[in-house]
């Protein structure tokens, strides 16, 4: 188990923690908007960490490039979809949660 | 000329021709009718080419892509598949001539591509020797049939088509599961290879069960026939002719092929089960047909009944192999022609009278003599009265049954004939009487009437061509089974 393995393991565990947080948020938060917020934020960061962890393992730079492309793609898609869902929810008249 | 004829690989032509025709019709919808007719006629020619080829140098086998059996897919054609191909081509041509006039421009553009793809699927199905390939052709045929059935767009047409689609998908999935078990059990998907490797094991029994259920569902044998009558009755006339005469026969052919080569030798009670279901189909179908008040439903239920006849040859094949299978082959061929003629005739009546209530057929004999004659001749073949092909089939079936003293099956066959006479003559009887209501009549082009009549004549002519056809069907695998001559 050389040092790079340890590094990538650590990075990936961190990523997993972020994913866990995102999921917790999804379950616990009261309304749709807050859940969206939690999901996009936590998962993107989590994914970034996981991608970096994998990049360490990758044998060639092309693979690293591809991994980064994947991360970028998820970022773009995640953001816009969250926006669309929020807009759809607003149109459908779902009120924001107030205590 | 001979060299050229035998050099061309007719099997492949048979598949590519309708495929190309279908795509051409799709590309140029305005020329759909002409293209359609041309390609169907070409298919007819190539079937005769294949027939000639098989007659000369025996079984036709073509390894696709140059890869031999286990890896690649083989095209295989012997007597039985040739018979089915011939039936498809003949009936297809008749129906194409009919539908050339039946559909307006808008519907024609939709009908022709799907019909040609269905024809391609049928040809591919009859030629394929690979179990998974059969699944794909089965699926292709199912989807095309559903698309055609839903063409009319009416309330019950769509209901019928939906039910037909669900049933067909369920059938295909069950069949696929069976394929999976066979492949993983014996490592090959080629029927010939499987025939060699298969021996009784739970996987084979499960595969037999699943594939049979799947195919019976698509062939609409008695308990699984619920979807056929509404789908066939509400579809436009040429489509219901296609469904009843050809599509139903496709899945029966696969079951027969699998049974002859893979599952037959295993024995077990399954053939008696088929016999039982066949008996049920005949009785239930005929009784239902007798009850119907609408002509198309009557003819659809008659299909359910006649399918029962095909399955009666399974239990009989135990010892009188040759006669039973040639009987089944002959019944399939003559039923295809006769049922197509019947549905086309019903289409004419529907188009002429605006309705198809049997009680008010209002002297249709006098106003549509050719159609009435077509319906009567087709009825003769369905009933199995002497001059017709149906009679030869029934004669062979009775002969096989009597050699084994299967009195139960003999009585069913005879009772089936009598019940068939019941519902056919119920219609013909009304064709003569004067109905009280008069209804607006829409002119029926002569070509449509003649198409129905020629198909009916074909069914009757089969009565006289028994020995050449049977000798042709004798080539190849099907009748190698348990050769105990009567």
């Amino acid at each position, binding site marked *: 188990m050389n040092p790079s393995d340890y590094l990538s393991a650590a990075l990936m565990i961190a990523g997993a923690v972020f994913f866990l947080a995102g999921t917790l948020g999804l379950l616990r938060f009261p309304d749709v908007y807050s859940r969206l917020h939690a999901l996009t934020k936590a998962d993107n960061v989590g994914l970034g960490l996981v991608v970096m962890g994998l990049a360490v393992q990758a044998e060639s730079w092309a693979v690293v490039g591809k991994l980064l492309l994947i991360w970028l793609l998820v970022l773009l898609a995640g953001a816009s979809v969250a926006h669309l869902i929020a807009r759809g929810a607003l149109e459908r008249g779902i009120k924001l949660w107030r205590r | 000329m001979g060299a050229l004829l035998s050099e061309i690989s007719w099997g492949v032509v048979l598949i590519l021709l309708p495929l190309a025709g279908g795509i051409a019709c799709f590309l140029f919808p305005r020329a759909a009718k002409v293209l359609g007719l041309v390609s169907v006629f070409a298919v007819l020619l190539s079937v005769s080419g294949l027939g000639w080829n098989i007659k000369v140098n025996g079984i036709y086998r073509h390894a696709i892509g140059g890869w031999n059996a286990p890896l690649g897919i083989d095209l295989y054609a012997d007597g039985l598949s040739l018979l089915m191909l011939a039936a498809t081509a003949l009936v297809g041509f008749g129906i194409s001539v009919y539908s050339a006039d039946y559909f307006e421009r808008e519907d024609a553009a939709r009908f022709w591509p799907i019909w040609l793809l269905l024809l391609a699927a049928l040809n591919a199905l009859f030629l394929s020797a690979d179990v998974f390939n059969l699944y794909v052709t089965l699926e292709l045929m199912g989807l095309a049939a559903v698309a055609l059935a839903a063409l009319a767009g009416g309330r019950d047409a769509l209901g019928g088509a939906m039910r037909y*689609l*669900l049933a067909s998908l369920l059938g295909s999935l069950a069949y696929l599961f069976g394929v*999976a078990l066979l492949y993983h059990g014996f490592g090959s998907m080629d029927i010939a290879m499987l025939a060699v490797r298969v021996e009784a094991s739970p996987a084979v029994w499960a595969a037999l069960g699943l594939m049979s259920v799947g195919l019976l569902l698509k062939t609409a044998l008695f308990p699984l026939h619920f979807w056929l009558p509404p789908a066939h009755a509400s579809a436009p006339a040429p489509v219901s002719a296609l469904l009843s005469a050809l599509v139903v026969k496709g899945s029966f052919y696969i079951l027969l092929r699998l049974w002859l080569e893979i599952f037959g030798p295993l024995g077990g009670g399954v053939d008696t089960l088929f016999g039982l279901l066949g008996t049920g189909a005949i009785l239930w179908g005929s009784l239902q047909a007798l009850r119907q008040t609408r002509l198309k439903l009557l003819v659809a239920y008659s299909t359910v009944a006649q399918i029962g006849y095909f399955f009666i040859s399974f239990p009989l094949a135990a010892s009188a192999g040759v006669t039973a299978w040639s009987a089944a082959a002959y019944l399939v061929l003559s039923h295809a022609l006769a049922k197509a003629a019947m549905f086309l005739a019903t289409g004419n009546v529907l188009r002429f009278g605006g309705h198809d209530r049997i009680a008010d057929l209002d002297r249709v004999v006098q106003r549509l003599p050719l159609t009435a004659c077509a319906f009567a001749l087709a009825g003769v073949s369905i009933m199995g009265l002497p001059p017709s092909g149906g009679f030869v089939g029934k004669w062979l079936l009775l002969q096989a049954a009597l050699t084994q003293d299967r009195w139960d099956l003999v009585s069913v066959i005879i009772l089936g004939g009598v019940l068939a006479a019941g519902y056919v003559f119920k219609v013909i009887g009304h064709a003569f009487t004067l109905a009280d209501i008069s209804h607006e009549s829409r002119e029926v082009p002569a070509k449509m009437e003649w198409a129905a009549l020629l198909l009916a004549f074909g069914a009757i002519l089969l009565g006289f061509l028994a020995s050449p056809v049977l000798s042709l069907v004798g080539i190849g695998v099907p009748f190698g089974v348990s050769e105990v001559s009567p």
Partner: protein
Amino acid sequence: MSAAFLFALVGVGLFSLGLYALIVHAHLLRKILAINVMGSGVFLVLVALAKRTGESQPDAVPHALVITGIVVAVSATALALTLMLKLTAETGRAELPEDQGK
């Protein structure tokens, strides 16, 4: 009980589940879903059993079959959905005629 058989059993389970849903539910969309699940089940069995080649690469043929199967499944689903929509437009309910009575 290698992974292959585990997933094969899961496939069988999915197949039965789908079949149950297909029979029980009246709503056409649910029936289509059930058919897709059954399809996945069968594909799972096919591919899972292809893995019984020990260490070496799994048998490629079932994989090709399943890819073909997936494409066929999607086209069937598309057709089924359109048919369902047209039927609903005609009859007002997304159920087969005989089920509408119940």
